[in-house]
């Protein structure tokens, strides 16, 4: 039963703590450097190196395979954003592509049995809060009064529910991504432990090292890993980007509708004044 004792499902390991302000609330008293942070730095480095390598020595006429790949990726990303958000949001393509790349590479780290930064809630909470701020910005852009008034629609009694609904957006986004990745890694951990117990039961009578070697762990987890690590991780990156685009573009539409309504009201008032003056 050694394998069961060795099996552990924990959060990110904490490497070190840097003291900041003694006795400050909200966790401001110390800066925690955890496994998730270090691994996400590795992901950021990887993505940056990939971008630099792909875009080195670009020419007007693509001569290298690298440049063709880079152009293909950029074109795909910008078409994807244009299709889903409209022409006016074409400048969003780099942000969405960066989000997708970070999420995909982070989730793919678990193939190498490294701690995926996306299986830490804090990483995804950061992205979801960023998206929430963007949504709120585009809603307020159409006018702060209209934004606040939209909470009392259709009747003012529903205000608390509307506020909860507004806060549920980032929470559901982060729990969706986190839950998918963590459930995959929990199942993979359980399967590795079960396979090592099974191989200890079957091959335990072999002498020495051969008796302890987990033969069943070779090859069998690949099938499940393909689904839980690769497919699920890439799908979640896609979904997160897709939802970001949908929420932001619908928020911008709401904001524009509010601004339009305000402009129409102002015009009507001016017309009325002109008519009264006449």
């Amino acid at each position: 039963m050694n394998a069961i004792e060795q099996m552990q499902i924990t959060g990110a390991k904490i490497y070190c703590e840097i003291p900041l302000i003694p006795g400050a609330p909200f966790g401001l008293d110390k800066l925690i450097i955890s496994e998730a942070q270090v691994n996400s730095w590795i992901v950021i480095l990887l993505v940056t190196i990939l971008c630099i390598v792909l875009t080195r020595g670009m020419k007007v006429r693509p001569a290298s395979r690298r440049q063709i790949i880079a152009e293909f990726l950029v074109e795909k990303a910008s078409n994807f954003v244009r299709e889903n958000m409209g022409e006016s949001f074409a400048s969003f393509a780099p942000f969405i592509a960066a989000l997708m790349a970070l999420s995909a590479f982070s989730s793919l780290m678990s193939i190498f049995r490294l701690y995926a930064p996306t299986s830490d809630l804090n990483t995804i909470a950061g992205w979801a809060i960023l998206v929430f701020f963007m949504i709120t910005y585009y809603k307020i852009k159409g006018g702060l009064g209209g934004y606040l008034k939209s909470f009392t629609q259709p009747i003012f009694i529903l205000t608390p529910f509307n506020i909860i609904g507004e806060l549920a957006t980032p929470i559901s986004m982060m729990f969706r991504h986190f839950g998918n990745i963590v459930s995959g890694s929990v199942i993979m951990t359980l399967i590795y432990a079960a396979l090592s117990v099974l191989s200890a039961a079957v091959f335990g009578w072999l002498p020495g090292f051969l008796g302890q070697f987990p033969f069943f762990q070779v090859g069998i987890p690949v099938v499940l890993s393909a689904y839980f690590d690769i497919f699920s991780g890439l799908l979640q990156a896609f979904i997160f980007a897709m939802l970001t685009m949908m929420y932001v573009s619908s928020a911008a539409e709401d904001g524009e509708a509010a601004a339009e309504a305000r402009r129409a009201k102002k015009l009507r008032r001016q017309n009325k004044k002109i008519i009264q003056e006449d």
Partner: protein
Amino acid sequence: MMENAIVLAGSAIGAGLAMIAGIGPGIGEGYAVGKACEAIGRQPECKGSVTSTMLMGCAVAETTGLYGFVVALLLLFVTPNMFLGKL
């Protein structure tokens, strides 16, 4: 000792009950995939868009199940530490 046992048993049972939330998304996603297969069978040329829409819908429908999963994780790994530290 008794209190520890009660807390551990309660969180384990609660985690099991929380995972009942997995039934709903299972049925829902199965239904969605069935409908997508029907649509592809009727119009094989729009397989790509049907598949991507279906995956998107499945991932969104999965959220309620994942809430249950997160609650189960909290009950298994957070609640015992929180209470047993105090007991």
